[in-house]
């Protein structure tokens, strides 16, 4: 590329970057300024932190945070256990019905539980689980995506390791635990980041299945906070919005490389 081309590319890149970050920066700006400035943008306006404690007090955000943390922890731990077991069977064992079973796993990549709202709601009502944190997580416990990702990883592990372990007297579960789990850790970490950020952000199903402060995750709490407020106080809403996204945003800034690599690993099949 010539110099001119490079300069043009850079300029276009920076313009797009500025445009892209603008809505977020504007929200950040509003969150750190008193409400009287929200209608007239003024770079010299004094900064303030007052909106954050105000927002924190107006809705049970502490409880919402706790609910979300419980939710993502529960989902990820169950997913890792169930999907590691299944992925190991698909990667290394041969059994009748394997291909049909694996096709059924792949179906879940397209027809995600998120769209089967009506039936899953009926199931939860039948189980008496409506309005529980468990009910938010249940449909996601068996992740077709996790099974697929871990199976791909496990298949790259040399079979010689299996045989060595078996010669040493390792059982099937011992083999899984001593050989496959340690070698599959990077893939599990990648899936973990994807799973946590997905369920931290998930909204539609939690909205339907929860109806009390004790179970609502942050996303649902935030949407209620920002829509039922009488008289829109933008400074407050922006503060609440940033507050609820802050953990993910901070996590992303600290572990940028891992995040990007995880998303990449997770996406390329």
């Amino acid at each position, binding site marked *: 590329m010539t110099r001119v081309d490079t300069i043009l590319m850079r300029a276009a890149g*920076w313009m797009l*970057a500025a445009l892209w970050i603008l809505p977020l920066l504007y929200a950040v700006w509003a969150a750190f300024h008193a409400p009287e400035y929200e*209608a007239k943008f003024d770079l010299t306006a004094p900064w303030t932190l007052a909106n954050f404690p105000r927002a924190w007090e107006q809705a049970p955000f502490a409880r919402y945070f706790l609910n979300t943390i419980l939710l993502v922890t529960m989902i990820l731990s169950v997913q890792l256990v169930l999907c590691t077991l299944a992925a190991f069977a698909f990667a290394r064992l041969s059994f009748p019905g394997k291909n049909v079973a694996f096709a059924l796993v792949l179906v879940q990549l397209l027809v995600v539980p998120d769209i089967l*709202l009506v039936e*899953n709601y009926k199931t939860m009502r039948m189980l008496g689980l409506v309005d529980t944190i468990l009910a938010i997580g249940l449909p996601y416990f068996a992740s077709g995506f996790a099974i697929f990702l871990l199976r791909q990883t496990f298949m790259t592990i040399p079979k010689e390791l299996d045989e060595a372990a078996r010669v040493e007297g390792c059982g099937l579960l011992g083999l899984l635990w001593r050989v496959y789990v340690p070698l599959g850790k990077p893939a599990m970490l990648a899936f973990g980041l994807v799973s946590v950020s997905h369920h931290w952000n998930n909204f539609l199903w939690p909205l339907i299945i929860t109806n009390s402060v004790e179970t609502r995750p942050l*996303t649902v709490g935030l949407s209620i906070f920002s*829509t039922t407020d009488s008289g829109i106080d933008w400074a407050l809403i922006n503060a609440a919005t940033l507050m609820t*996204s802050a953990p993910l945003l901070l996590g992303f800034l600290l572990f940028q490389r891992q995040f990007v690599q995880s998303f990449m690993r997770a996406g390329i099949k």
Partner: protein
Amino acid sequence: MRREWVHAWLLILPAFVFLLAFTHIPVVQTLLNSFWSNPKGRRAAAFVGFDNYAAMLADPIFAKAMVNSAIYAAITIPASVGLSLAMALFVHRRFRGVAVMRMAYFTPTVLPLIAVANIWLFFYAPGFGLIDQIRGLFGLPSVNLVGQPDTALYAVAAVTVWKEAGFFMIFYLAALQTIPEPLREAAAIEGCRPWTFFRRVTWPLIMPTTLFVSVNAVINAFRLVDHVFVMTRGGPDNASQLLLYYIYEVGFRFWDTAYASALTVVLVVILSIVGIGQFFAADRKVHYK
């Protein structure tokens, strides 16, 4: 051998209980329920054949939701794919500040869609939002982009593109990194212009990524409606009504679960067609090395 079979089934059984209970059985149940009426009081559900589907064809809001979903897909898919490719081309070489540029593109991806919706609602807000403030500088009147029927859908689509382009960018970045450097050097020696190089070499080589990203964009276009809840609630006057949002309204606000099942069947069929299409496209059209 027999023991291996038993072990294998025991290993996949726990996962399969959940898969069947919350994905496969619900799909079948949805299909069956779409041929039955709602139970009313003591009256049990009755078999109604294709009545729910006939009602669907006569339902103007369903028609509106389908047209909107099509427009929404037609905007968000090419826009987010094109922009993500541009972003990847901008940041795939090292230079001072590249990390900042990449962060600017990628950050929206990390935010919850509900938070994104709030941020944009404020950005669009008549009188308060940056758009209106800039218009004010030029003496233009205030506009309510999410509140008027002819712009609401586009306002929502813009938010989707903002949220997903950075995500797709990383797949293109990975693909661009696999293009061998000698090819670029050879092209440079031959005096090949960057645009020609892009069209003849880069574009065909990253075709699998484009397919992957496009399929994801299609799926997102039908599956992601969180922002609609915050920004427009499908309005005004169904102007931004999308299929999944309509399923929610029918199923959980009007409690017409039979009709909601029929609508869900339509959504499942659409997603299946996308999946099958991807399978065949990956087989034929796409150039793998």
